[in-house]
């Protein structure tokens, strides 16, 4: 991938189809960046969960709102941002899905899976006022030059 595509922004509709679309975009970029199949799978699940979070909880399935996906590369990391247009939330507010009383709950595992499959997950206030999930994964050693191209 050329240096010109080091950063990519996609605006997605608040629709269930956007979940698969976001996953597909990010996994393609991750494959091109040199991640192996397992890491691509983990990144795909994390992004899927992030967009589901934006669709369900952030934008409350409101089709007038958008989901903002951004992919960027730093020299050592691939970073994916998923931002919604909701009211935002704090990671500390989310119940622990591993707590005994929550193990059989039918929801509430998305953020946990994101954390499990990423090197770093942070939540901050996005430009649109909603939550912005910042997902980070270290680039593999054989990365396809995304980070280096920026330095050159």
């Amino acid at each position, binding site marked *: 991938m050329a240096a010109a595509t080091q950063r990519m922004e996609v605006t997605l509709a608040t629709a*269930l189809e956007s*979940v698969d679309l976001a996953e597909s975009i990010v996994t393609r970029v991750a494959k091109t960046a040199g991640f192996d199949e397992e890491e691509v*799978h983990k990144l795909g*699940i994390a992004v*899927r*969960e992030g967009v*589901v979070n934006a669709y369900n909880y952030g934008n409350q399935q409101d089709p007038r709102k958008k989901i903002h996906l951004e992919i960027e590369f730093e020299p050592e990391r691939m970073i994916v941002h998923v931002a919604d247009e909701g009211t935002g939330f704090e990671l500390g507010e989310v119940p622990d*899905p*591993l707590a005994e009383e929550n*193990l*059989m*709950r*039918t*929801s*509430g*595992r*998305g953020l*946990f*899976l994101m954390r*499990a499959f990423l090197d770093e997950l942070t939540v901050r206030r996005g430009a649109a006022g909603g939550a912005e999930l910042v997902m980070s994964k270290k680039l593999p050693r054989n990365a396809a030059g995304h980070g280096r191209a920026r330095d050159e």
Partner: protein
Amino acid sequence: MLLQGTCREVGEVAVVDFSGKITLGEGSATLRHTIRELIQAGRRKILLNLEDVDYIDSAGLGELAGGCMAARKAGGELKLVNLTRRVSDLLQIARLFSVFDVQADEAAALRSFR
């Protein structure tokens, strides 16, 4: 790949062979409806064969938990068998091995029903 479930009867046990992804949307709905229909039809011994399911997201895990609870509430049992490595890893991470009844193979699973 859309989730597909094929139900077969082995003695008193309803075995459902699933293939595809169990993710938010059609996949999770198919799983939910399949389990619900079996319970409504009076089936109390349900075995989900996940041999051809390589992808489950948090919504899918939630549906499995919900199905398990629904079966127990109806006085029945719901068990899982033939997990792929990815699904097994996911259940491990989410600590669901401690609450789901996961069997190593179909023969053992069939024997384990009360």
